[in-house]
């Protein structure tokens, strides 16, 4: 394990260099933390299903991360793996078998004790088709069962190697829930997950709010936390406020204590008014545009490269995000283990783009558009609506930039479900995606299953490289393979990285200690209020 940790630290150092908006991970404590009181948080997206085993969304994780604990904890700064509900663990050399020694004295909030049987019940349940897992099951790809060696020892086995499993086990997706709640069926768990975490999901008002109450007997916080006992806050109310402007105004007028996703353009104004804006670069897949090489006219690599060169990502991040989100330099964000800087300098070169298009036979017409054999050069870009992080505006900027070199882009906003379905059918011409996970294995998650907006076609060597990376505990090999995949995607111009998603958290004056988990989402465990 030590070798793996060393490499992870190295990766994290690279990340710190590559990331221009590194910010403190928690508000500096000005005074001794005070127990009691409540915090009102306004989030932007309705989390929907609150079962981490089922739901793939970050909106849902924002809630569940505070309710379920995981076997392993990942340090938000160093991305090192540390003990949590498991005191220690070992992996077999071929990465197919993992043995965890569990902590004792942990209980779920419904009183059921946490033990080896609970771990088995959780993993068995995730892969069950009836659970309808949208993400967690894919993290357990090749799952071959869990054996209970004794009440505090379990072995998780895989048919194929799954070297990144310990990291996956640190996410809320594979978090531990009370086996008793599974009996009520997946819909019941969606409404009310029961974990061993510092907070209990107490009440839910559909479309409006979720109330978390303190777990007073909590004392098994992860080794990565400064404060490992019961949370300071008695109550956290998470209000769902989809309107950015309304969320901002509510924070400014102190109607709420903290808000999710501050629009980058508003960040400086908010700071000027005495509020704190915490930034956390998210690990995983950068916000990336994807070109489907299986569909005309994008099957021509020159057309794809021309499009990649025609997009001025520097201008996009500066104008749209005021540099608050850094320009992406690879398909993985700078904060991801396995990241390799491919685009140290921007590949924007409009003249080269025009040349490539001329070479590919798309001649410029009098009206500035291009055509070949009477067919206009036009591509359809399908994206998810309502869009996060002003991606709808980004699409308009890119549309203009491509128009300048004669490529016509039709924007097709669709609901998330439809984008996913269209991707799965291979009908997407141009799409976009970002995906949070603090491990290079995220490339496998995104490229092998049909994720919404992900590239449909990759170079023939890519799947092999990813499988090989998942099959080894040798971090040198993993890193090398991930670097090759990142370079392949960009050289073939099937992927055009644009920006590294960064979570901007707006924090009111009375709130302290609000931090981020490794996925870059706010966590309330160590937060407290002074009033």
């Amino acid at each position: 394990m030590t070798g793996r940790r060393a490499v992870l630290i190295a990766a994290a150092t690279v990340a710190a260099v590559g990331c221009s908006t590194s910010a403190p991970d928690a508000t500096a404590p000005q005074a001794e933390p005070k127990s009691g009181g409540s915090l009102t948080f306004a989030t932007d997206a309705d989390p929907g299903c609150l079962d981490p085993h089922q739901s793939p969304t970050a909106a849902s994780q924002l809630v569940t991360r505070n309710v379920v604990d995981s076997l392993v904890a990942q340090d938000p700064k160093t991305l090192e793996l540390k003990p949590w509900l498991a005191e220690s663990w070992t992996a077999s050399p071929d990465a197919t078998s993992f043995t965890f020694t569990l902590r004792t004295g942990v209980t779920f909030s419904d009183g059921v004790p946490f033990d080896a049987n609970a771990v088995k019940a959780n993993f068995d349940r995730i892969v069950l088709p009836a659970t309808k897992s949208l993400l967690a099951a894919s993290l357990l790809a090749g799952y071959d069962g869990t054996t209970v060696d004794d009440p505090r020892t379990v072995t998780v086995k895989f048919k194929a190697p799954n070297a990144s499993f310990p990291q996956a086990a640190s996410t809320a997706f594979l978090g531990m829930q009370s086996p008793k709640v599974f009996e009520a069926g997946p819909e019941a768990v969606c409404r009310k997950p029961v974990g061993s975490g510092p907070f209990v999901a107490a009440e839910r008002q559909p479309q409006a709010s979720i109330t978390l109450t303190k777990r007073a007997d909590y004392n098994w916080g992860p080794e990565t936390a400064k404060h490992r006992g019961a949370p300071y806050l008695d109550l956290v109310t998470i209000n769902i406020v989809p309107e950015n402007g309304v969320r901002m105004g509510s924070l400014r007028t102190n109607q709420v204590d903290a808000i999710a996703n501050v629009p980058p353009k508003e960040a400086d104004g908010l700071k000027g008014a005495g509020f704190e804006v915490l930034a956390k670069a998210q690990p995983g897949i950068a916000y990336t545009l994807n070109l489907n090489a299986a569909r005309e006219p994008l099957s021509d690599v020159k057309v794809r490269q021309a499009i990649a060169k025609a997009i001025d990502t520097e201008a996009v991040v500066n104008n749209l995000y005021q540099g608050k989100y850094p320009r992406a330099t690879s398909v993985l964000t700078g904060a991801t283990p396995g990241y390799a800087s491919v685009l140290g300098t921007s590949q924007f070169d409009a003249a080269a783009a025009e040349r490539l298009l001329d070479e590919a036979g798309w001649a410029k017409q009098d009206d500035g558009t291009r055509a070949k054999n009477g067919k206009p050069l036009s591509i359809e870009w399908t994206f998810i609506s309502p869009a996060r992080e002003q991606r709808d505006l980004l699409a308009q900027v890119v549309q203009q930039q491509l128009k300048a070199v004669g490529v016509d882009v039709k924007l097709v906003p669709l609901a998330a479900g439809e984008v996913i379905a269209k991707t799965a059918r291979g009908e997407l011409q141009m799409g976009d995606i970002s995906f949070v996970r603090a491990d290079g294995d995220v490339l496998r998650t995104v490229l092998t299953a049909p994720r919404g907006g992900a590239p449909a076609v990759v170079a023939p060597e890519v799947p092999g490289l990813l499988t090989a990376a998942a099959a080894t505990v040798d971090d040198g090999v993993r890193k090398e393979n991930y670097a090759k995949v990142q370079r392949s995607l960009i050289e073939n111009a099937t992927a055009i990285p644009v920006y590294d998603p960064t979570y901007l958290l707006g924090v009111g004056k009375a709130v302290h200690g609000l931090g981020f988990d490794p996925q870059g989402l706010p966590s309330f465990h160590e937060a407290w209020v002074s009033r």
Partner: protein
Amino acid sequence: MRRAGFVLRRLASAVPVLVAVLTLSFVMMQLVPGDPVQTMLSGAGPAPTPEQEQALRHQLGLDRPLHEQYFGFLADAVRGDFGRSVQTGEPVVSAISAVAPASAELALFALVLSLVFGVGIAVLGRVATGPLRSLCHGVPVVFMSTPGYWVALVLIEVFSFRLTWFPATGDAGFGALVLPAVTLALPAIGVIAQVLGTSLAAVDAEAFVVTARAKGAGRWRVLLRHALRNASIPTITLVGTTVGNLLAAAVIAETVFARPGLGRLTLQAITNHDIPVLQGVVALLGVLYVVVNLLVDLCYVLVDPRVTADRIRD
């Protein structure tokens, strides 16, 4: 006895409307392009196998002949069963009943505001003189011409963010109800004030009012005892449609003010192609329309005993 018979006849006449509404919901499901089974199975992860598709199709009864599906749907609907949401897997009825109280609260408050201010402006428009009178005649048109989303944003900007009188969001307490209710009420105030104003003017010219005035009855007395009573019939009719419109306009108010409710549920159902939920909402509104109109008809009888069921039928 006659009143009971009237109610029964009205109830009977509501049945065809309800069946028609339910039929419309069923047709909706058939009109939606694409395969509902595909939609339901199109999550991330491995592509569904034909067996999985077949199993779900059978479970949903989509492999039965269309007429069997239709009567099955009607029978389920009468029992209040609209199946499960495609998006969340939750029964449609519980999804609706979870947010219905919030909607009812908002619509009721907005209705009270609409009636109080609508009637107030109409009456003031009759008794006032000079600029106030012109104002009372002009204001309803302005209210009716202002889009709800704009009102919502202006109200939130002025009363929540600048004056900080009312909270912008949430569903806790009376304060949070004020701005969304005003947003909903404005167009309704406009319509009620205008219709009642017009009827008041018409009644004013009628013989019995002229007579009452000639007998020396005071301006207010004539207005309250005679004109208002007679002019109220078209207004009562209006209340029937107003309730539905308030619920529909809530789509926008609930989105902007981040309130839970039927409007947002409907909007979510539409963006996610969640047809069972949409069917449930459509059926609920159909029932509501029938019930409200029944109540409206009863109000006619109370206001004006001369009105009989037959006259209403026209």
